[in-house]
């Protein structure tokens, strides 16, 4: 199997799949953000469609439940005039029965041009991309704990719209880094785009080992992590992880890491607050902050459509006719 950073590109070095932000150059990321800007205005028009992907078939293949990601992908595809099919598939993760590749090949036989894939296993989108014919594209809509590159790109878009750029920004990412594919992709994007400092904040049970190798600093002290931050990203703490082995209780977690107005005082006065959603009010973030004027959580969702349109157009743009 080809290394991931090669698998994403065609022979001419053009991006053909969107699987991870690891290894993508700054120019590519900025190009996607610029294209997304041009799509924002379409959403406000009476007729919201452009015919860029007319005649193309997109399959949203979600092996894991999702509402907002799947919906924004669907809207993005439809605004580009593609035919969009949504499949919420169950998957049996054993050696017997239909494998993930069987499912994908079956759908491929129906002449799909683009798969948008979400799966609970890290590397699933990569596996699929490596085993499809060359003209078929794959977008990773979240694989296990590994990557969620479109979410990270819409976050970058939201940051740039709010802050004007990335240079010199201090970004704090708070919470369950261990299980977060969003955080991993955000770290790759923020590093490539040249922010000043990336801090990850949480108890050591939720911070993966050697995360410093990704170019971040780690701390267990939320106030220290927030000090002087321009951007505060709160991660979702899944309640099903609250079995008392990673964090003792919701009460203690909220006490130490829940983002409140009081704790937010340590960040810059104009700090923006982000969350990939869905939020747990009173667990990782207080309602006052989530609904407050510094929160851009709903803008993130809106921006998701333009950014996903941009990513689809970028990787589908140079699609050669099917052989």
């Amino acid at each position, binding site marked *: *199997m080809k*290394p*991931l*950073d090669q*698998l994403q590109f065609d022979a001419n070095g053009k991006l053909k799949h969107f699987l991870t932000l*690891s290894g993508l150059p700054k120019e590519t990321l900025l190009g996607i953000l610029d294209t997304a800007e041009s799509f924002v205005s379409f959403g406000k028009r009476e007729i919201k469609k452009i015919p860029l992907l007319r005649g193309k078939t997109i399959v949203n293949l979600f092996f894991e439940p999702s509402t907002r990601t799947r919906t924004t992908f669907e809207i993005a595809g439809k605004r580009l005039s593609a035919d969009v099919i949504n499949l919420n598939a169950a998957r049996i*993760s*054993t*050696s017997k029965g239909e*494998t*993930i*590749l069987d499912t994908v090949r079956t759908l491929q036989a129906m002449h799909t041009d683009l798969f948008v894939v979400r*799966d609970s*296993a*890290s*590397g*699933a989108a*990569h*596996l699929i991309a490596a*085993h499809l014919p060359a003209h078929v594209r794959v977008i990773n809509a979240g*694989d*296990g*704990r*590994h*990557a969620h590159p479109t979410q990270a790109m819409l976050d970058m878009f939201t940051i740039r719209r709010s802050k004007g750029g990335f240079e010199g920004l201090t970004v704090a990412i708070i919470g369950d880094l261990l299980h977060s*594919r969003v955080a*991993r992709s955000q770290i790759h994007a923020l590093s490539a785009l040249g922010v000043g400092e990336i801090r990850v904040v949480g108890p050591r049970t939720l911070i*993966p*080992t*050697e*995360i410093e*190798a*990704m170019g971040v600093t780690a701390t267990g002290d939320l106030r220290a992590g927030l000090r002087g931050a321009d951007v505060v990203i709160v991660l979702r703490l899944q309640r099903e992880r609250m079995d008392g082995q990673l964090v003792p209780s919701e009460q203690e977690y909220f006490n130490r890491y829940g983002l409140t107005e009081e704790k937010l005082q340590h960040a810059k006065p104009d700090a923006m607050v982000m969350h990939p959603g869905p939020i747990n009010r009173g667990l990782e973030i207080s309602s006052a902050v989530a609904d407050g004027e510094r929160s851009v959580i709903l803008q993130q969702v809106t921006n998701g459509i333009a950014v996903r349109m941009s990513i689809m157009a970028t990787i589908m743009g140079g699609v050669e006719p099917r052989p």
Partner: protein
Amino acid sequence: MSARMPASASANLLISGGRLIDPAHGIDAIHDVYVVAGKIAAVDAKPKAFRAAQQIDARGLWVLPGLIDLCARLGEPGATDQATIASETRAAASGGITRMVCPPDTFPVMDTPAMVRMVQDRAAACGFTRVHPLGALTAQLGGERLADMALLMDAGCVGVSNGLQVVENTLVMRRAMQYAATYDLPVFVTPRDARLHGNGVVHEGEISTRLGLPAIPEAAETVGVARDLALIETSGARAHFDLLSSGRAVEMIAEAKARGLPVTASVAIHHLHWNERHIGTFDTQYKVFPPLRTERDQRALLRGVSEANIGAICSDHQPRDADAKLAPFVEAAAGIAGVDTLLPMTLQLVEQGALSMATAIAALTAHPAAIIGVDAGHLGVGARADLCLFDPALAWVLTRNSMVSHGENSPWLGHTMHGKVVATMMDGKLVYRNELCVTRLGGEA
């Protein structure tokens, strides 16, 4: 087969002009080897009244004791859709292996004398290589009741083991060791703390963090080693730690050996060649248990072999079809089909200067023989003529076709191997010869 090929064990056989490498006797020189009645009759000097009924011209070849692989799974019983005793013993013979030790985690489990005899009988009927099953340490490998270890030993088991299943109950483990010690039966342990290992698939570190894969901390191994060393110390059991993966575990075992504890250790060949970085981006061919760890661990394991704290190098052979690896990393099967490549990949470490020739060959022959307590792995006078002939100049590419094992899982697929076993003998009888080398071996072209 030509008239010059050794067809029966009774015929006198001369293997002439080869480079004999026999670390047990400190030999690495061009020597003739004389075989009478399936046993080594003399080395170098021709015995009186020896008349060769058959002769092999081994000039340019290396003559090695037959290899002893301390950890190989055959697929049978239980997974005969993937591999069988016939297919894998044949593959082993083609790799120069004349004895293989098989873990008891077959299906059904190797916990009755009948199962042990069945496997040995089948292997004997195939006639490619000797198979030594390990008996179960606990019934059904369940970790709760002791298996019939003495009966398993009587049936031919050279040791007992719980396979990759951990005996989580420390009291049961202690009693199992005490019981095995009664019969001086070696206990094979793959050291692991089951809870720390959890559902992990890669070493805990930068790679697990980047790829977002469930991780196995080093402590999963070292906690296991520490516990079992403490039990060995008080039970008097002879223990063999197999498949070590961390440098820290090597240190702990070295320290225990220095204190005189009866412990030995082995490592899988792939842990000496690779580390976690080779997984790249989800390359499932590199998924193994225990996991590939850091480059430092890899170096420490190599040092462990060269300092003889790790006595043996094994293949950790686990044949699987290609589909087994064609899944997301977490779900893909672990393991590598390794008997085809054990010898060339070990010798590559010699080529690279990481191991001396004597150390490398001893780790495949004399040391594993001592660990399982058999008189083998050397070519001294009187020893069984279990040996292999290796052509160091023969380069070949490992492909699904060239692999003799039914397994299709190896990261070395597509790679060029330097050197190939061209003939393997048991009791002086040819059990394998490479078709490309018929002329070299004296057959008709």
